[in-house]
């Protein structure tokens, strides 16, 4: 009599377990795909922004060499801080805790330099400093939108 009822109860249990296993398997599959897509998107955005700042710093340094006095000396500290930040930037360590803080630091120094030069972010075809105000979810759409809206300046291509 025990066996009869046990197998009936176990049938329910085994269905539940099977369902859990299937759900886990399917969930992992779609989760991985979603994660990959999101990671690609976020990585692209971060890369774009960091690359933009790296390009600007290179350009300012080149300008300083070719036309001494074109960059006010009071900005030296901020540009040097950006260089320091860029050298340390963990582009290949996506789980580095300081990833976002360093990016914010770069953003802040960048704006400080622009303000010191009397320019606005729009003048420099900024990639992501305006997308920071867009909701986190709208991702690549807003960053390319910002680049397009700001006058279509060509982003500097870097060898990194």
């Amino acid at each position, binding site marked *: 009599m025990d066996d009869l009822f046990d197998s009936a109860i176990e049938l329910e249990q085994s269905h539940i377990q099977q369902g859990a296993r299937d759900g886990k398997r399917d969930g992992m599959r779609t989760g991985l795909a979603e994660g990959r897509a999101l990671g690609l998107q976020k990585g692209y955005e971060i890369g774009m922004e960091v690359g933009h700042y790296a390009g600007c710093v290179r350009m300012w340094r080149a300008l300083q060499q070719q036309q001494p006095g074109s960059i006010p000396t009071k900005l030296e500290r901020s540009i040097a801080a950006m260089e320091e930040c860029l050298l340390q930037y963990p582009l290949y360590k996506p789980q580095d805790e300081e990833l976002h803080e360093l990016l914010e630091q770069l953003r*802040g120094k960048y*704006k400080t330099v622009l303000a010191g030069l*009397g320019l606005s972010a729009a003048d420099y075809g900024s990639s992501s400093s*305006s997308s920071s*105000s867009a909701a986190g979810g709208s991702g690549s759409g807003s960053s390319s939108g910002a680049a397009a809206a700001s006058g279509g300046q060509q982003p500097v291509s870097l060898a990194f």
Partner: protein
Amino acid sequence: MATLAHSLEPLQTLEGHTDRVWHLAWSPDGTSLASCSGDRTVRIWQQSRIEGRGWRCAAVLEDTHTKSIRCCCWSPGGTHLATASFDGTTAIWQLQGGIWEEISKLEGHENEVKAVAWSPCGNFLATCGRDKSVWFWERGLGDEYDCMDVKHGHSQDVKSIAWHPSRELLASCSYDNSIKLWANDEADWVCVQTLEGAAVGHSSTVWSVAFSRDGRKLASVSDDCTLRVWSVEWSEGCPPEPHCSLAACISGHHSRCIFTVDWSAQGLIATGDGANSIKLFGQPSLLETAAAAAAAAAAGSDPAANSSSGYIQQAADAAAEPGTPQPAGEQPAPAQQQNGELYDAAAAAAAAAAGDAAAAWECLCSVQQAHDADVNCVRWHPSRQGLLASAGDDGLVKLWQYKGLGQAAAQQ
């Protein structure tokens, strides 16, 4: 019992602005009141020299900003005025030969600038805005202000900022429900603390923050209808590091969003809210102690009161940074001349000595329909005890006189 003795009497209504008045600022010497408005102007109000005539508009600053002026702030020396506008710029004005002129414009914010504040030492200016950033500007040669640092710590619109009265410490508050404290690390500004989280921080937009005059407390008000008082402590060390902890959460008094908060010299807190009311909060036990001390001091020569006033003078001297330009002939610290002013010093000393963090807060009085619309700003006069100015969405600036315990005899 204590509540019956407190009142806020209307003194005068100042008309002139043609749109909502957003913000008020008393000049450091207390002779002028600046108000800024959605009508894109700033009005400077001064007391008429003719007795009984009250305050009248002495100047209108216009044709500079292209959108609402959201905030105005005097320089510590009272010679300059900074205005922050929805047009994304901050203008610096100077009074020259009786005329206000715009001498500088600070640009950089991506959109609306919500607040501007001059550091008490006069060397730094801070602005904050809807672009979620707090900008620090440093005074350079002449009247130039250079951008020092841009901080992106907040995750939403930054509503307001306030400087500590004696240290280089800035508090900012935001739509992201948090309050951040910023301190100077050489030429970089760093967020040293964030006041947020369940049971400690506000649960909705924090609209305004204000340090008490002695710098030992910070008050914050929010859309969550609470007023929070934080105690500010400094660690031993070089340089000393600040740390804030929640001392009191005052709730149940406001039915709508609280927009503005300000500390008086005696440690009273005034708030203005979206229910058109102005409310005053204080710690009755401390006020009673102070009133008793003041009465004793006024009655005769009380060595205790004299020494406490000495303490306050010392504290005030210590608070003024070496480089602070003092307005000629004026002292920002209360001078020991009138009964009322002495009460001031004794109250502050009593509060400081008694370890005021634990004393209970009460709503001392509440004025319903102080304005016909939201009350955007309340500001206590820097030296005249009990004089309060308020600004509202109804386009009016109103002056009020607070009368409380131990002030029956004191004159304004």
